[in-house]
C-alpha cells in the first residue's frame, strides 16, 4: 500500500513534468492572442491598460500586491480607457520627471503632460480622449523605450 502511494505520487510528478512545457507554451500563446485582440479594439478598457502596463513592467506588479495604488482602484476594469487614466498609472509608477504637478494635484491632465514631455504620448489630444487598442500598445512601447532610455 505504501509502495502504491509512492508510485502514484511519482506518476503525478512525471505527468506534471511532461505537461509543464505545454502549459508554458499555451500561456505564451495566450499573451500573443490577447495582444492581437487588443490591437483590433476600437476602445480599450481600464482593465486592458492595467494588464498591459504590468505585463510590460512586471517589477511594479509585485510591488503593488502588498500596497495597491489608488489609481488602480479608481475605475472599474470595464471602464473605457482615457489617456488620463493610463497617463496617471505611467506617471506615478515610472516616476516621470515632469510628474510633480500630478503628484501635487492628482489631476490626470498633469500626468498627461508628463507623458507628453517624455515623448510617451503625442501632444495633440486631451486627457479625456478615449484610446484604442493600437494606441494603448503604442503608448506602452514608448513608455518602455522612455524607461530604458534607447
Amino acid at each position, binding site marked *: 500500500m505504501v509502495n502504491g502511494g509512492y508510485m502514484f505520487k511519482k506518476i503525478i510528478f512525471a505527468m506534471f513534468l511532461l505537461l509543464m512545457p505545454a502549459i508554458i*507554451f499555451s500561456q*505564451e*500563446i495566450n*499573451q*500573443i*492572442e490577447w*495582444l*492581437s485582440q487588443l*490591437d483590433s479594439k476600437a476602445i480599450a478598457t481600464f482593465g486592458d491598460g492595467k494588464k*498591459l502596463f504590468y*505585463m*510590460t513592467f*512586471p517589477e511594479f506588479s509585485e510591488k503593488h500586491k502588498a500596497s495597491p495604488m489608488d489609481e488602480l482602484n479608481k475605475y472599474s476594469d470595464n471602464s473605457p480607457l482615457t489617456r488620463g487614466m493610463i497617463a496617471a498609472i505611467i506617471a506615478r509608477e515610472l516616476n516621470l*520627471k*515632469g510628474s*510633480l*504637478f500630478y503628484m501635487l494635484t492628482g489631476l490626470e491632465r498633469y500626468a498627461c503632460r508628463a507623458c507628453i514631455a517624455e515623448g510617451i*504620448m*503625442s501632444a495633440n489630444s486631451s486627457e479625456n480622449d478615449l484610446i*484604442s487598442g*493600437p*494606441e494603448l*500598445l*503604442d*503608448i*506602452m*512601447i*514608448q513608455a*518602455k*523605450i522612455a524607461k530604458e532610455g*534607447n
Partner: protein
Amino acid sequence: MKHFFVVIFLSGSLLCASNSFAEIVVTKVEGTAAYRDGNKWSPLKEKMKLPEGVKISTGANSYAIVSLNSLNHTVKIEPLSMLQIYSQETTNKTNTHIGLKRGQITANVPKNESVKTIFKVSTPVATSSVRGTEERITYGEKTGMIVEVLRGSIEATNRFGRSNVISGKQKFMQISNSANSRNILSTVRSISIVSVNGHGLTSEETATSQYSGGDQTGSPDGDTGAFFNNIQRNSTVSVNIVWPW
C-alpha cells in the same frame, strides 16, 4: 513527351534559381514570441526555419532575432512588435521587405559590394531603404514612424513620395496625418539648445516658482528673494559649439 517534361523541369528550376526564397531562420528568442501558422499563433523557437511572408509577434519583455538570408542580414524584433517578412535571394541579389505593423525593430544589413541589396522596411506612413547600415525603426499609430540610423545611411520616403537621406544622429519622423516628415535635426536641436535661467535655476524650477511662489525654489546661492525682482535681467552666457561632432 519525355523531352517536354525535361524542358518544363529545367525552366522551372531556372525560374526558382532566379528568384528563390531566402532562408528565414530564428537565431534567438527571449521571452514570448510567436509566428502565424495558418489561423493560429505558434511559439517561435531558436533555429526554426520560417516561410516567406511569415508574420511574427513578440510579447511584453520579449525579443526575437531573425536571420533573413545567407548574407547575415538580421532583424531584432523588440517587445510588443508585429511584422511580416518577405525575403528573396539569388547569387547576386537580395531583396528583403519587412512590413512593420507596430513596435520597434533593429535591422542590421552588412555591406557587400558584390551583391545588389534591396532592404526595405515599410509602415502605413513611410518606407525606409537601407544599404550597408544598421537602423532602428519604431512605428505606432499616434507616434508614427521613427527611423534612427545607428550606422551608415538610409533613405526614408513618406507615402507622398517626399524623401530624406539620413545618417549620423539625424532622425526621420513621420506621423500619419502630415504630408511632411519632421525636421531631421529636430532631436539634435532639442538636446543642443537649452534654455538658460538666472540664479542657477532649472527651467522646471522656474515653472514651479511661477505657480507656487519663490519660497519653494531655493537657488544654490540662497538668493530666492531676488529672483522675482530680477526675472528679466540680461545675462552673459558663454557658448561652445562643436559642429559636426
